[in-house]
């Protein structure tokens, strides 16, 4: 697969709204099996397509790619022999000691490509219509139904069964839940939710009225106020806490992404994950010695 093929595939994934990370070799100190400009993409399942160097670099790039997909941040990864990779590295580069015999150092830029967040706009009030029209401009995908994977739900039904919609959004754990209603109407809706057994913590998550407080507003102004709050909310949010599980290769000590690991061995009921077949066969030849090392 050429670098161009990788980009074609990346474009396809992006258009399908599938998350992935693009890994590009940006620096090489020879000897190394890769050149600047070599590229690969890593799916959220940890599958690597393309070429950024062989078995020495791949597990590290996959691990960092999965981290990038999880937190949305790009990272520069510097891979080389222990003790040498750090020399001359950019201060915020991720330093990774390769367990290979290769003496080269490779720098890889890992960029997550995440689909735009999904906003569910519920209701057909004028404010809802406007919000649905404006939100794509600021980088939201919009649905008019309650979707389980929505990151934000704005309920602006003008009263047509707000409670059911809100209860469902809270139950799905949608991070941003906003209600467009007067204070009095909102208090009635919240009381109804309470009666249905929705707990106080969940009720406290309902932003009501949704939107920044910009003063008494017309319908178009309400739409802009909600949009402004969504922009602020998206940028103030802490990175997603879910980090991919990582295990330490008991042979070489490298951190390996568990979900993407291809080399796995079971010993005394425990699973062990390896950076490559070399480490696994060494482990399998004498597992007891490595397990002791890990336990200490």
């Amino acid at each position, binding site marked *: 697969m050429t670098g161009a093929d990788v980009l074609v595939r990346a474009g396809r994934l992006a258009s399908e709204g599938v998350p992935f990370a693009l890994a590009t070799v940006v620096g090489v100190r020879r000897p190394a099996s890769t050149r600047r400009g070599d590229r690969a993409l890593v799916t959220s399942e940890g599958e690597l397509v393309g070429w950024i160097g062989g078995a020495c670099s791949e597990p590290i790039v996959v691990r960092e790619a999965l981290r990038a997909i999880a937190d949305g941040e790009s990272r520069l990864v510097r891979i080389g022999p222990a003790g040498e990779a750090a020399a001359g590295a950019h201060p915020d580069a991720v330093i990774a000691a390769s367990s290979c015999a290769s003496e080269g150092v490779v720098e890889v830029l890992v960029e997550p490509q995440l689909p735009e967040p999904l906003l569910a706009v519920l209701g*057909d*009030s*004028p404010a809802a219509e*406007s919000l649905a029209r*404006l939100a794509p*401009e*600021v*980088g939201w995908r919009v649905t008019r139904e309650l979707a389980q994977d929505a990151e934000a739900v704005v309920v602006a039904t*003008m*009263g*047509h*069964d707000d409670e059911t919609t809100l209860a469902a959004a809270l139950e799905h754990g949608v991070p941003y839940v906003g209600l467009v*209603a*007067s*204070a*009095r*109407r909102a208090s*009635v809706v919240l009381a*109804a939710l309470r009666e249905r057994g929705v707990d106080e913590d969940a009720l406290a998550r309902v932003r009501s*009225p949704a939107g*920044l407080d*910009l*003063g*008494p*507003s*017309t*319908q*178009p*102004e309400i*739409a*802009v*106020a909600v*949009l*402004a709050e969504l*922009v*602020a909310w*998206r*940028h*103030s949010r802490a990175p997603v806490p879910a980090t991919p599980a990582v295990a330490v290769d008991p042979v070489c000590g490298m951190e390996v992404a568990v979900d993407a690991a291809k080399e796995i061995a079971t010993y005394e009921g425990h699973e062990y994950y390896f950076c490559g077949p070399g480490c696994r066969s060494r482990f399998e030849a004498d597992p007891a010695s490595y397990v002791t090392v890990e336990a200490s």
Partner: protein
Amino acid sequence: MRDILPTLERWAADGVKAATATVVSTERSAPRDPGAALAVSESGDVAGSVTGGCVEPAVYEEAREVLAGGEARLRTYGIADEEAFEVGLPCGGTVNILVAPLDPQLIGPLADAVREERPVAMVTPLSGANAGVSRLVSADGPSDGEVDERARELLARGNTAIVEVDGAEVFVSSFAPRPNMYVFGAVDHAAALAEIGRFLGYRVTVCDARARFVTPERFPEVDELVVDWPDRFLEQAPVDERTAICVLTHDHKFDIPLLKAAVATPAGYIGAMGSRRTTAEREERLRAEGVTDEQLARIRAPIGLKLGGRTPEEVAVAIAAQLIQTVHDRSQAPEPVAG
């Protein structure tokens, strides 16, 4: 009512009688603002709306009665919250709606004024012998007493509301031309701001001295594109309290003379783009040009609420939000004493 004027014009031209139901005031949250109207023709056709569809059936019946020769009437639709629940009806707000026969003679002149962006108010007494009988008041011309004066005050601010004169309530529906938004600097942010500005009801002009950037391809969403020096353009452009001036040039060469001109106008919103450092430098230069602290305080800089967005579209939302906030701050300020 603005949205249904084309339909009303057609009915008037065809000699079709009609009655209108107009929102004259609202309490708490209501789906539509004062001035929103629904019209019913004698053949039963409907145009427009007064709420999100919740009181329309009741209003329709009232309009039919008026068309059948009934008197103009003021109706209040306040839906108790408990009741709202049971019937699945909305809002918890209250709307006051005037249902009255439509005078076809008014429609032509009103539609012309709106098309030509001439300010005009429709004035309708809510009680007394002339209840429900509307007439038009333009921004100039001879004044016909206190009602006209009060109507003109509202019209100048683009407000639609009920005024009380000698103990009688009169509904003033302003058909003010769209307020102007002047955007200086033909940058990507300007295109995004123009779009949201138009959405908020502004007539948007984008001005830049560099002709090659001021093209309809880059700015499909604007009312007017101007190639001129920003300060020279602003000095001859109409500016009133509803005008928004957005300075996105972030180049001292343009900014300084432009902002100096801007603070000399009554514009309701002046914002200037630039980093905090640029802003500080710019303030120094403006002071050196004789701009006072009071004038400087009118400039929102760096422009826009701090929302953390980075794309031009996100910045445009931040500017629009600040503009809305500023407009409301001003509308809540004590009315200036006429003098």
